């Protein structure tokens, strides 16, 4: 099993989720993160003062998948999250030793 971490542009979240649902992936854990990279933040007016906000809001997805689905999931995220402009984001693949579904105690690919 692998844990796929995808850092993407926030407006792409729904599209990526739908594309994953299309290939039978439903379980995803999402959090809002701040991205630092080649794409730079900008000045923002906040409470009347100009802020140089040097981070860009991104969304991080975590998806535990069985080994045989990894390539498909990565391809799906890549194709959907891509705009071709700087800041599209990254996909990281981490080894996952074990997974447990808390509700049932199921382990392994049954759990995800």
């Amino acid at each position: 099993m692998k844990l796929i971490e995808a850092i993407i542009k926030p407006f792409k979240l729904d599209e990526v989720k739908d594309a994953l649902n299309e290939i039978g992936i439903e379980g995803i854990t999402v959090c809002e993160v701040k991205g630092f990279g080649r794409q730079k933040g900008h000045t923002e007016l906040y409470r009347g003062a100009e802020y140089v906000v040097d981070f860009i809001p991104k969304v991080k997805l975590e998806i535990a998948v069985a080994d045989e689905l990894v390539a498909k999931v990565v391809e799906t995220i890549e194709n959907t999250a891509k705009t071709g402009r700087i800041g599209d984001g990254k996909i990281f693949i981490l080894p996952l030793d074990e997974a447990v579904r808390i509700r049932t105690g199921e382990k392994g690919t049954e759990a995800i």
Partner: protein
Amino acid sequence: IHDILSRSRGAFVGLAIGDALGAPVEFMTSHEIRAKYGVLRDLVGGGWLRLKPGQVTDDTEMAFCIARALDARQGWDLKGIADNFAAWLRTKPVDVGDTCRRSIRNYMLKGMLETPFNQWDAGNGAAMRMAPVSLFTLGDDDLLSDCAVTQARLTHNHPLSDTACIYLGRLVHLAIQGRSKNRLRREVDRLVAEQPTFGFDTYRGLASGYVVDTMQTVFHHFFRTAGFEECVVATVNQGGDADTTGAIAGMLAGAYYGMEQVPRRWLKRLDPKVLDETTRLAERLLHLSPLFSGL
């Protein structure tokens, strides 16, 4: 000699002008540029990097790293160039290409003066720095080939990048020495014979950072236009990697048409420090060249 100096300056100033003109429309398509500007023909600033009008980017700044190193050593100094790249990276430049960043980091942390071959290294990041190298090696094709590739390999190791650097140098040499556009065209034909993928007879408007797209865009517009302004404007309005295609077109057109053809209004709006340093270093590098010592 006056013409040679004017064209040498044209090459380096042209690089900076093309960079500053194209940078505000980098990553836009030709249609988007047309919708927003009609025809972009002024140094307007803005764009994804939120530039000031006349501000240059990594294309010019990395060329400065090379020019200053050669001027300081009064000769070739690969390590000096690498040190300048590293110092530049630490200043948090307005933009740094992915390949260049990786390679400069590897120099900083591992002292590597040549990046290993990589299939992804066929970008234009080494080619865009060729102005100072061309001036320094004016008059000696073997020296040009040697310097072009060793400076390229600081960041990019790919045959397409190597070939582009060498031939850009050759074109700048021919242009500065007053050769005709037909002669330059024959040189490009030699490049295409050697590496057919650079062929641009059926130019399809691809202007990305892939060195082949970049070179095709520059050649297409250089050989279809009849003046410095016309060439650089046409090139950047193609969009894509517009600051780099603009910089390379500016270098080539500047070398061919000379300083007199660079529009006043652009010179006035270009960052004054950049104008001063490109003008001054162009002459210093020319004085170091084999051609000059032979005069």
